[in-house]
């Protein structure tokens, strides 16, 4: 026994010193194709946007494609700004979104060949194309007829209207949302008389909340509606431009004191902490309603059954500088998203709404009864106006430091500047 142990220990000692041949560390490619993408985590609610979509795709294509999500805590506005930074440093993920909400950026990306043309893929796979509503596909098609934005299936989830607080309305003795613009202004006055701030607004970013209401109001007239359909209007020095300035100035007389120089998150907080009775936004905000809020949060189209929507803003693009196999995988993901969106719509419209939140029922009702869909100004108007002029002009307009005429002048200057850059 002693001898055996001796031999065993000697053996262990020798083998312990031997070591192994070091492995070659040259990295090998995995057979699963990874599709880099950035999704935002809402800084206000902490919700991971598009998580269900990502999980569903990764499950459906397990072992073949992998949507490699980088979760970033930032607002949608911050994401858009980062897109531009990532582009100039050539560090864009393979799939990007919100591209066309900055028209100049979108145009630049197309002109510099940074986005993959998806029209061959659409023509090749007609089952994909047929899943897309013509209105959505038309919006997603670029001026040259090519498609750079992988469209969603339906415009059902893209519309913006007004969220309103039924309890605050009731306190002012109002039992329904106004159906005409005249009633809307009366509603604001009544709320104000009862000590309730009517509107949750802000001036930073592209002035999303006030601009939604103002552009919807502008489209009440035939000329205004026509003006809203123009791509990159060359002149705001007209009745539409002036009316826009007047409405904006009037809107800010019904909002909170902290609206100036604040971003949308401030307006959001004001509305959901009952400091204001109305906030405009789209369908996607239904998911962002705090859990503790009950059925007092309602949704209506803007007066005159008007909704604001540009489905192309929901189109996602594939970055062309990626290798072909990654781009092909990214296109598969866009197809999956279209299908996913289609199923979502079918589920939404075919479900039993009895136990669903009132706000969802309101949205479906507003969508089905909409008389007019006004294009989103973000995809129509020049970037300098949206990103530089409005941030300066809206606070001045709100504080009555400039007149609507001066506002029009400032807007017009942005047009000239933009033209010069083009």
């Amino acid at each position, binding site marked *: 026994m*002693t001898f055996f142990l001796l031999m065993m*220990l000697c053996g262990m000692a020798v083998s312990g010193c031997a070591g192994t*041949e*070091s492995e070659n*560390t*040259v990295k090998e490619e995995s057979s699963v194709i990874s599709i880099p993408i950035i999704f935002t985590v809402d800084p206000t609610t902490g919700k991971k946007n598009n998580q269900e979509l990502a999980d569903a795709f990764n499950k459906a294509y397990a072992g073949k494609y992998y949507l490699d999500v980088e979760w970033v805590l930032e607002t949608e506005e911050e994401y858009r700004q980062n897109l531009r930074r990532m582009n100039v*440093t*050539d560090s864009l993920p393979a799939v990007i979104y919100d591209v066309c909400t900055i028209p100049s*950026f979108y145009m*630049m990306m197309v002109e510099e060949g940074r986005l993959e043309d998806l029209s061959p893929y659409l023509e090749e796979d007609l089952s994909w194309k047929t899943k897309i509503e013509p209105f959505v596909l038309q919006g997603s098609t670029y001026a040259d007829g090519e498609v750079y934005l992988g469209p969603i299936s339906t415009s059902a989830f893209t519309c913006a209207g007004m969220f309103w607080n039924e309890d605050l309305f009731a306190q002012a003795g109002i039992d329904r949302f106004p159906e005409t613009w005249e009633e809307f202004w009366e509603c604001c006055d009544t709320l104000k008389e009862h000590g309730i701030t009517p509107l949750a607004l802000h001036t930073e970013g592209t002035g999303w909340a006030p601009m939604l209401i103002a552009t919807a109001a502008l489209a009440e007239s035939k000329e205004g509606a026509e003006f809203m359909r123009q791509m990159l209007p060359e002149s705001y020095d007209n009745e539409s431009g002036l009316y826009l300035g007047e409405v904006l100035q009037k809107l800010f007389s019904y909002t909170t004191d902290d609206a100036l120089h604040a971003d949308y998150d401030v307006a959001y907080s004001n509305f959901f902490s009952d400091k204001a009775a109305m906030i405009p936004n789209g369908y996607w905000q239904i998911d962002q309603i705090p859990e503790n809020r009950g059925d007092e949060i309602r949704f209506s189209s803007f007066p005159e059954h008007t909704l604001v929507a540009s489905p192309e803003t929901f189109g996602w693009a594939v970055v062309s500088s990626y290798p072909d196999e990654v781009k092909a995988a990214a296109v598969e993901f866009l197809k999956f998203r279209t299908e996913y969106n289609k199923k979502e719509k079918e589920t939404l419209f075919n479900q039993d709404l009895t136990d669903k939140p009132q706000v969802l029922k309101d949205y479906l009702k507003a969508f089905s009864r909409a008389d007019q869909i006004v294009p989103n100004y973000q995809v129509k108007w020049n970037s300098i106006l949206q990103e530089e002029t409005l941030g300066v002009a809206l606070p001045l307009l709100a504080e009555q430091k400039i007149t609507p005429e001066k506002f029009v002048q400032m807007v017009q200057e942005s047009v000239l500047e933009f033209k010069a850059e083009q």
Partner: protein
Amino acid sequence: MRNIMMGIVTDKYNFMTEKTGISLDTLYQKTEKVTEECILNDQVQQSLKAKPMEEVDRNSLSKYFAYIDLDHVSEYCYVDNKKNLYTRSYSKIPYQYFEDSLLVQQLGTSYADTRWFVMKDYLFGTGEEALFVGRKVHSLNYAHEPGYLFFKMNPEFLQSLLLEEDNLTQEAAIGIMDPQGRICAYWYPEGFTLSTEQEAVLADYAQTQGYGSLVENEKISGGILSVYKQEECGFSVFTLVPERVLGKEITKVFWVLLVIYLLVIAIAVVLSIYFSNKFTKPIKELNRAMTEFNGEDFSKLVHLNTKTELDQIGNAYNEMLSNIKELLDEIRTQQKELRTSELNMLISQINPHFLYNTLDTIYMLARINKEETTMNMIQALSKYLRLSLSKGSEIVTVEDELENVKSYLQIQQIRNENLFTYTIDCEVDPKETWVLKLILQPLVENSIKYGFCEIYEGGQIRIHVYKQDGRLILTVYNSGIPIAEEMAEKINALNGRLLSEARKLFPKNAKNGYGVSNVLTRLRLKYGEGVLFTYRAEQDGTTCTIEIPGEGEQHEENL
């Protein structure tokens, strides 16, 4: 063996290659970050807009590049999309020079990659080869022509990678080469030069696809080679350990290993002897204790303290001895009791005739004197004794057992007028079901003695005999004071224990024995471990249950 030793010697150089490679990664990322900051700079972006910048802003922008966070920048040059050059204030370089320098061509078709390249400097006028870092600068917002940004780096830029490895560069040749295999920086030991063959091998690796550690400790002509390639810039770090260094190092390692081996063998011998003794000694002790055990002396226990499994074996042996002793004691006690029981049985069978005759005489006297109660009592006692005494068999029919207990109950009813009533519910065939005799009477006695100790009338006793799940079940219920939970638990816990333990808990002479020991002992002796004897406190009384395995069949032994 030689390969193993070679591995030991070259590992440190390989580690150094990798470490330097990772430093190269960091250095590239630094240039990427700095150029990114430049691209995103407001003034740089302004310079790309359609509207020309003011002279003062252009001067300011020229100076901006002088303060970037990157060491060893020899010169810089930024060119906007309007052919304006931004360089150090003392460099007034015409745009044509820039165009002729061919720097732009080095950036290729990439959109905005950070590029490292080595080329002759025709821009700043030295004409010498230098490392340049270049990148295209695009507008954030508009599709304008891009600008171009270039940094010409000092030799110290790459040399900074190896400052910490000075001592190793005395022995091995280390170098950095560009993607074409041109060596941009090197640290060679004194007198070392690369052979043409070695240069060709290095150039091959520089142009190889892939990145990271391309090769580790590969034997090539004249030494051992390791190469690490940086992913983005394509530059590689290589280490070549010359053969003469290897020979020297291997000899050193050989002696060290020899000493270690000798030391290990010596330790192994000592440990083997130690552990051998440690394990065999207790085994021997255990062996001796087992072989010496004669079945009589249970006091020789084994005491091991090895802190191994052997301790458990020793303890198990001790426990086994203890169990054997206990079982032997049990058997002896049972045999003694059995003998006593048999003796008593014999004695009790001698006298019955005399007893019955006497009882008959008393009965006749009572009848003459018309003492009806006395008559009934004598009649009941007579019946009771008939079963208790006259029938020598230990097993009787349920009919006889119930007759016996009924007699006892009648006697008790006469003794305690109005104290209780009783019912007997027999669901089995009393003539064909067999049971150990005199097991119900002690239970009934307990019912009267303890259950009805605080009442004077109205008590109830119910006897129930039935079969269930292949078992014969006899229950005695009394409506008196419920048995104390503690006592019931104590009795119930006897099931499954050794008889000797039951006797310890309920000694024969104990006042509150409940006849438990007697009944349980007899039941267990007759029916074995399968019999169950339980007490249960009810809301309004106590139930005692006897469960006998089998269904009271008439076995031969029952006759």
